[in-house]
């Protein structure tokens, strides 16, 4: 019998602290598998967010540096400019990237910093107890929008990936989902593509990953994957929004 699936080498054998059915754990594994396959382990630096994934450095067996809340892209800019031979990625949630870190993210993308951001969108603030996030969809109930998000009171969901895709500095912008095994495998390919964009020096790359949060959506893990596919993917259509294949002149 040949082993065809096991834990990636650059993930420590530490059990994840995430809730049952959480998308973060799946995405950690995908990122680790891509790092293993591209043989980047010695020269990759990750920047975890504030949020549920704040302890990502406990799991990845690579260099990681925690950033202040939302400032992942600013820290990544510093790393990339001082160590251009390294591959730098930020791992950010929707609160980290689309709320407190909007300025840093947009400007890093607009400067065309040669970094990669992995943006986990679960449409809710997970770590702090399920408050409404900028990405919460209309009608979705959270602890701070108990009657469902209303556009006349709480505003509309923020589509930061679409916004970044309009910036000239962004080279690769895509949205994927973790709803089914096929989409999980497509997510892995997309992350690989983003790292390849950075290796080629083309500019800022962003992968938004729609992820389930069964605990704060207050449904079972199986129902949360259905909700992800039936509701969240309607509001946030999947696909590659921007792909630059040739280097621009300076």
């Amino acid at each position, binding site marked *: 019998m*040949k082993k065809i699936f096991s834990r990636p080498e650059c993930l420590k054998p530490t059990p994840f602290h995430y809730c*049952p059915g959480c998308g973060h754990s799946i995405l950690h594994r995908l990122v680790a598998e891509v790092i293993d396959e591209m043989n980047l382990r010695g020269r990759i630096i990750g920047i975890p967010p504030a949020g549920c994934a704040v302890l990502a450095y406990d799991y990845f067996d690579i260099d990681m540096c925690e950033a202040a809340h939302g400032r992942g892209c600013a820290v990544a800019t510093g790393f990339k400019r001082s160590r251009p031979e390294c591959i730098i990625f930020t791992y950010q949630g929707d609160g980290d990237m689309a709320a407190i870190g909007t300025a840093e993210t947009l400007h890093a993308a607009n400067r065309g910093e040669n970094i990669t951001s992995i943006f986990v969108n679960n449409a809710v603030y997970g770590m702090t107890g399920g408050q409404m996030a900028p990405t919460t969809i209309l009608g979705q109930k959270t602890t701070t929008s108990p009657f469902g998000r209303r556009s006349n009171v709480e505003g509309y969901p923020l589509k930061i990936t679409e916004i970044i895709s309009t910036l000239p500095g962004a080279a690769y912008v895509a949205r994927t989902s973790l709803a089914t095994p096929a989409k999980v495998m497509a997510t892995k390919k997309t992350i690989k593509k983003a790292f390849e964009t950075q290796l080629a020096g083309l500019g800022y790359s962003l992968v938004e990953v729609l992820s389930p949060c069964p605990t704060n959506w207050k449904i079972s893990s199986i129902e949360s994957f259905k909700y992800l596919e039936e509701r969240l993917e309607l509001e946030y259509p999947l696909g590659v929004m921007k792909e630059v294949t040739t280097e621009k002149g300076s």
Partner: protein
Amino acid sequence: MAAKGTITIDQELCKGCELCITFCPEDAIRIADGLNARGVHPAEYVKQHCRACTLCAVMCPEIAIEVYRE
């Protein structure tokens, strides 16, 4: 003929989210009667059905599943 395989489930890592059971096309996984140290009923492998498609392992958030193919 479909490939034959087997899986191992680390029941101490399992949090009982049942995603492997949902996505297994062969109904080769079920919830165990016993509890693990976390106090959840972990998934367990029902032998002789696996065709090593790895869908359970791809969806397992805890990386508790290892897949082997003949």
